[in-house]
């Protein structure tokens, strides 16, 4: 029950906030804060029992069990019957929790709180609408993660675009309209192609098995059954289908992640978005792409993921790691720098997922959460700095540590999490990805080259972040031009926004095991699916 409740609460909050009226911005933000807090409480109530339950499952599906996901806390309601009387089928409201989405849900609910707090004074116009859109965005993001129905997944996937379009387009910076339009059209173009792929796999399953279903676990099961067949014609059919479906899904998810070279919407959208929008965009929305790879692309098309996914996406991710870091270094705008650092970090994530082994996928999954926290934190801090001086240009600043002690402290701290400092969250994920890459064992892919690139990425992450720290926060004090009044350090509200993020970074860095434990079975399911694909590939080669 809690699962659909966390989707409904923000919607109700959004309606109430919208009803507060133009003059009621003050009450709207309290409504927003209340609903995100309630949602966070609900999420925690959902999480605590779920951890134990998910961790207690057998570590991997046995050969007798279906090789698929088995969500917990399921709610299934028929929305749109599309089958015949003899063969009922329906697009369903099918939501649930498993190890892959639990922590992303927690991350989303968690990051909403600072997002509301950071907008407290920054949003001066049409506050009620702002918070309403923000809450709708929360529903959309949570919806993507909890969906186990293909169409529901897609609907929520697209639903996230609308609120963010307005958040950027109405409350953004000077180029907000361009940024919003570009963001919307670019990601829409990608995800429409992904929809083709999603429908394609449903129809392929119907053609081959006669069963029409949109439920993701069932689809994966059917695909696995089909792939096990010895018939060459069936095998050839699925080979073709997987190729096309995988490429179509890649189009959608790669734009969202974003991978090089389809990343250019990201810096613009980040720079123009209001701080809360940037936090959620970097913290959660980018993960929709990598989550899509993990939940749909790899399990539904394992052979294609192995044969073209690893070389193609591995290469793009590797290029992205280096390229994003280089671009980040060259930026004068702090926000743009953080945006490009996301390209670099998400490259790590995707590379981890496409190692197709346990260490790498665990690392990739963990890195999604880590990146959400650390980049979310960076955007929060940049937003706080911007609110004080109304500039984001690095050359305008210097020695801010003398003026803004707490802000500088947290900036150094979050930079450390971002570069993967041991004991903070980024480290474990990065190391697992490195381990996974070493042992990825995919024919035709040089893991030595990839680990070298990861090492370069680890170095370069420190390079641009610490150069920024040196230029902005250290050295002689050089404040940007501002209107005379003494600029104060972080206030209580800002501390309430950033401190939980910092604490979460430490907690996740020191105790990552609950995350790894609860996801173990599902990760191993994906790994087993991928291993089966490896065996098939080896067999084909031998013949």
């Amino acid at each position: 029950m809690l699962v659909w409740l966390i989707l409904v609460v923000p919607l109700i909050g959004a309606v109430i906030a919208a009803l507060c009226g133009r003059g009621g911005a003050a009450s709207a933000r309290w409504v927003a804060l209340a609903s995100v807090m309630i949602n966070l409480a609900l999420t925690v109530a959902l999480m605590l029992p779920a951890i134990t339950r998910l961790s207690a499952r057998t570590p991997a599906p046995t050969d007798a069990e279906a090789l698929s996901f088995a969500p917990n806390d399921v709610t299934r309601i028929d929305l749109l019957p599309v089958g015949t009387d003899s063969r009922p089928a329906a697009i369903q409201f099918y939501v649930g929790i498993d190890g892959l989405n639990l922590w992303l849900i927690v991350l989303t609910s968690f990051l909403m709180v600072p997002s509301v707090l950071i907008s407290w004074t920054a949003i001066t116009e049409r506050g009620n609408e702002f918070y309403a859109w923000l809450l709708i965005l929360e529903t959309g993001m949570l919806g993507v993660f909890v969906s186990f129905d293909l169409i529901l997944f897609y609907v929520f996937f697209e639903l996230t675009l609308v609120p963010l379009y307005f958040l950027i387009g109405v409350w953004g910076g000077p180029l907000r309209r361009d940024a919003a339009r570009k963001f919307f059209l670019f990601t829409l173009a990608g995800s429409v192609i992904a929809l083709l792929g999603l429908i394609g796999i449903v129809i392929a399953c119907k053609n081959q098995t006669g069963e029409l279903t949109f439920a993701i676990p069932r689809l994966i099961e059917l695909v696995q059954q089909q792939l096990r067949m010895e018939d060459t014609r069936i095998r050839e059919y699925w080979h073709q289908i997987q190729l096309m479906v995988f490429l179509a899904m890649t189009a959608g998810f790669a734009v969202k992640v974003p991978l090089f070279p389809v990343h250019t919407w990201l810096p613009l959208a980040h720079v123009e978005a209001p701080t809360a929008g940037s936090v959620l965009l970097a913290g959660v929305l980018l993960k929709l792409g990598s989550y899509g790879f993990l939940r749909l692309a790899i399990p539904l098309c394992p052979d294609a993921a192995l044969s073209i996914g690893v070389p193609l996406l591995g290469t793009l991710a590797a290029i992205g790691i280096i390229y994003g870091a280089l671009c980040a270094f060259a930026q004068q705008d702090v926000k743009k720098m953080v945006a490009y650092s996301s390209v670099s970090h998400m490259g790590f994530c995707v590379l981890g997922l496409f190692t197709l082994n346990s260490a790498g996928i665990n690392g990739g999954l963990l890195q999604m959460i880590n990146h959400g926290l650390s980049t979310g934190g960076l955007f929060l801090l940049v937003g706080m700095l911007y609110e004080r001086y109304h500039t984001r240009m690095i050359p305008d600043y210097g020695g801010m540590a003398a003026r803004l002690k707490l802000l500088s402290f947290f900036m150094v701290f979050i930079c450390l999490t971002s570069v993967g400092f041991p004991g903070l969250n980024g480290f474990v994920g990065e190391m697992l990805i490195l381990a996974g890459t070493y042992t990825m064992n995919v024919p035709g892919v040089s893991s030595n080259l990839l680990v070298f690139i990861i090492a370069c990425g680890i170095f370069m992450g420190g390079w641009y972040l610490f150069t920024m720290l040196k230029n902005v926060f250290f050295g002689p004090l050089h404040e940007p031009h501002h209107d005379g009044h003494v600029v104060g350090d972080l206030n209580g509200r800002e501390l309430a926004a950033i401190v939980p993020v910092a604490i979460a970074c430490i907690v996740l860095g020191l105790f990552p095991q609950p995350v790894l434990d609860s996801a173990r079975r599902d990760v191993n399911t994906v790994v087993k699916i991928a291993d089966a694909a490896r065996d098939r590939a080896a067999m084909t080669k031998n013949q």
Partner: protein
Amino acid sequence: MHSHLWLILALPLGAGILVGLFGKLLKGQSHWPVILGAAGACGISLHALWQLHGHHDSVSLLQTDTLPWFSAGGVSVGLRLAIDPLSAVMLTAITFIGTWIAIYSAGYMHGDPGYPRYFAVFSGFVFSMCGLVLTDNLLVLYGFWEGVGICSYLLIGFWFAKPTAAAAARKAFLVTRLGDAGFALGIFLLWSKFGTLSLPTLFETVRGQPVEPILTTACLLLFCGAVGKSAQFPLHVWLPDAMEGPTPASALIHAATMVTAGVYLVARCMPLFVLAPTALVVVAGIGAFTALLAALIALTQHDLKRVMAYSTVSQLGYMFAALGCGQGKLAAFAVTAALFHLFTHAFFKALLFLASGSVMHAMGGVIDMRRIGGLRKALPITHATFACGAFALAGLPPLSGFWSKDEILAVSQEATHGDVFAAIYLCVFAALLMTALLTAFYTSRAYFRTFWGKEVIPPEAGSHGHDHHNDHHVAVVAHESPAVMTVPLMVLAAGAVLVGGALAVNHVFGHFVENTPDFLKYFAVHEHHANYVLMAVSTVLAMFGIVSAYFVYVVKPGTADVIASRAPALHRLSLNRFYFDEIYAVIAAGPLAALAVISKVFDMLIDGIVDAVGRLPRLFGGLLRPVQNGLVQFYALAMLLGLTVFIAILAFAR
């Protein structure tokens, strides 16, 4: 199980957190928790050392339960503390010297606005360093390794408003991180091949299966990390700049402990390195080359702290050269020699730095040897203690540097008789001898120029010139430092004088370290025997260096300029540190920044392509736009034509 070992980590960590959180309340008392924490850790370490020493013959190891950190996909990591003789020696050096430096800092940093911050980071450093030597898991070791790195970053950049300090901090962080990236690769290369991150298990697994060429690569990658952290060529450039930090921090981190972490790492992994002779000879080569190079640079530097920094680089090179000589049967000897030098070096180098700090304190922040001189009367205690340290470094018998340096020379000399790479080891041996001479010379040069000759005191002394230091002595004459600073100097001076001799007797130190279980298991037993010829040679070299420095700088001042003018090119090279910073700016930093700009431009290109795709519909739309001309009759005509075509199709298409 020995759960009290956790206290070694918990005390400094707790002190650090306490000072970090409540620094505003503690203010000028911030040093107390830190000193007590370090002292407590020191007490436990000494106790552990005593326990290990008691069990002389058995395999001796104090250890705790494993605290699991994470495990997934075959990578499982847990924190377990294990004290064996190797780590006990390191631990004692760290906590003992750390405690005294903390006490010294209470005087040196007195009145600084960042007082609590300094001590919080200081304590964090002690914690990380202890963790580094106590763990037996490579990835946890890497974690603490990064931890000491970040404390070093924070302390170098302690006076962050100084542009040079901010730049030096970033440089130190990035250069060491370059090595760390290689270290991480090495760790996971070993993991991917042998499936474990635990060092004892790894040593066990490596034996009994074909390991080449993975092992050589992995060892070289581990060595990469050591090169970065221990400032060896070619990543040595950060250490001299790191002297921008407070002097006590330099003493602790950039002289006595953190920079020796690389030596410790290679010593700890020696059971791997012995299986990879090529890796070892690279270690020896780089160590010897660095030792010579840094000694040459130290000859001409004017900044007293920089001389000491290059001397540190040089001495670390010495230790690596010793480790690199540990081919085959020499492994145990090499490790003990390197560790012995590490141990004695920690005392006298920390002492030299603290004494330099005392000079700096008295001279109002001036440390340029061209502006000070003849201070032996003004600063009697500083002078005496500095002399102890300097002559220990120069290797004058019977001070401690002599004994440990002699061990290293002995092991490198024995390596020249070995079966492999004899020619290279001969060069290493020669370079080390040369370095011994140069070391004696530049150390004495620094000593004589600072404390002998005509008394020169810069005007900053006694005034408020010290930019960070709120000095409350207003006297115009230079003054000796307060007791809180001189007592640590005297303690460390005693160590610098006595430690070497005391531990060299009957090879106490060597036997103790050889009892490390991993070494007992995998290394051949080494017979200690004194090499009197070599001792004599090294004594002569040291004496020659000291005497010639005395002649050049005290008896006939000005000789140095004459010598410099004889070999201007060499002098310029040395003075400009062989232009390494400039070369790196051209071959590394510059191209990387240029590449970044190119990427940025390229990104605009990609973005342009995307925008161009976005403009395509508009372009096609432009072709049809004139149709929308607003004329009713034109529309009617279009309808009519359309209808005609439609009917025509209906009529004729069947």
